[in-house]
């Protein structure tokens, strides 16, 4: 086997700190959590659970859920990677869900946003479960006109899907837990499908190379920063939050 050695996770902590600090700084108004909750209402959730049990959830090893979803036993490194991914899934789910709600894009793009939005919400929920108590809540996002402007939406969606796929490739060899890795790879190929799909839909080449290269968390953090989607905390919100830290 002559494969190049995976690089050590250089400056992994600092790039995560950068994004988590930015996300944690902002006020949590629950907008994305609300949309996520709307996507998984109690009744539908109960139905799905029944459906899953009917589909042989026993064979799927439901007993493993509590074990895997507790977030216990995860290394600090894996928690950091999963938290980064969770923040990213919140951000994407929020954008696509808002686009779907506003309905201002072309029918084809809205169809993409509807399907992919549901996937990203499911991904966020799954990663939250993997993290258990170590999960972080969603920050508030401000998508500006990106959720209602066709050109801006497509440009952003292509960038995010391509880079998310590349990011998961960067993270995969850096995960400590093989169970978590097995989970993340099932999301990875779906992100690449999203990227190829939106590219094809807008006349871009769906696949430009025989080997898709990885991209670091630092590059994703740069993309997120460039969008200004992570809303700045307002003066009012800061005042409202203050008592929580003085008592």
């Amino acid at each position, binding site marked *: *086997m*002559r*494969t*190049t*050695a*995976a690089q050590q996770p250089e400056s992994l902590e600092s790039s995560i700190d950068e994004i988590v600090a930015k996300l944690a700084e902002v006020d949590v108004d629950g907008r994305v959590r609300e949309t996520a909750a709307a996507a*998984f209402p109690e009744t*539908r*959730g109960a139905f*799905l*659970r029944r459906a*899953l049990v009917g589909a042989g*959830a026993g064979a*799927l*090893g*439901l007993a*493993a*859920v509590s*074990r*895997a*979803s507790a977030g216990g036993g995860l290394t600090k490194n894996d928690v950091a990677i999963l938290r980064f991914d969770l923040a990213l899934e919140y951000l994407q789910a929020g954008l696509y869900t808002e686009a779907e709600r506003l309905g201002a894009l072309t029918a084809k793009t809205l169809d993409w946003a509807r399907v992919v939005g*549901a*996937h990203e919400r*499911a*991904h966020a*929920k*799954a990663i939250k*479960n*993997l993290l258990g108590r170590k999960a972080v809540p969603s920050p508030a996002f401000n998508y500006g006109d990106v959720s209602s402007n066709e050109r801006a939406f497509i440009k952003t969606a292509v960038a995010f899907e391509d880079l998310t*796929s590349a990011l*998961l*490739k960067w993270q*995969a*060899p850096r995960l400590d*837990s*093989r*169970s*978590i*890795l*097995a*989970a993340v*790879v*099932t*999301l*990875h*190929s*779906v992100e*690449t*499908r*999203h990227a*190829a*799909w939106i590219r094809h*839909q807008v006349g871009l080449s*769906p*696949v430009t*190379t*025989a*080997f*898709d*290269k990885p991209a670091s968390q630092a590059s994703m953090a740069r993309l997120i920063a460039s969008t200004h989607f992570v809303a700045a905390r307002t003066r009012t919100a800061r005042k409202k939050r203050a008592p929580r830290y003085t008592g």
Partner: protein
Amino acid sequence: MSGTYGETTPGTRRDLLRRGVVAGGLALGVGAFLGLRPDRASPAPSKALDAKIFDFALLLEYLQAGFYGEAVQHGALRGEVRDFAEVVAGHERAHVAYLRKALGAKAREQPSFNFGAATRDERKFVDAAVLLENIGVAAYNGQAAKLTKPALAAAAQIVSVEGRHAAWISDIAGRPPAPRAADPGDSAAQVTAALRATGFLRG
């Protein structure tokens, strides 16, 4: 195998339900179906195991490269389907070359295939392409956690491209390019059975 690897009824209620069930499964915890592969259940990654897995992947890549190569050669495809076959044939040949180089002398030789009408009839070609690309994604995803980190890094670059191929040909065919929120991995036995079911493998 079309129920597993190729969505034959796009946009139907059943399809939506299936998507929903998968989303529900994810909501319950990816750990549920990943619990099938706990850390201690599979053998520890090693170079020897990498070689076994890569040699298995090589069979799949030979088959894909042979399929697209023959389809291009026959010249029966038109328009974007033909573009797809030409571009993807090049990628699959690159994957074969990569795996052969990584395996060195241990690499298996290319078997002979019988693609029948699938490389001459556009409709059959599209069906088979969707199937083969989806099998590719499931095959790599099923082995990922068993690979050493350097081998995993390489396999991730390949499966990503298989996923793009799958989405592209599915969109051309008017089928859901990303039918599920997660692409579960398949075992080597499942993949072998799926490949045998195509009838493309001789013997």
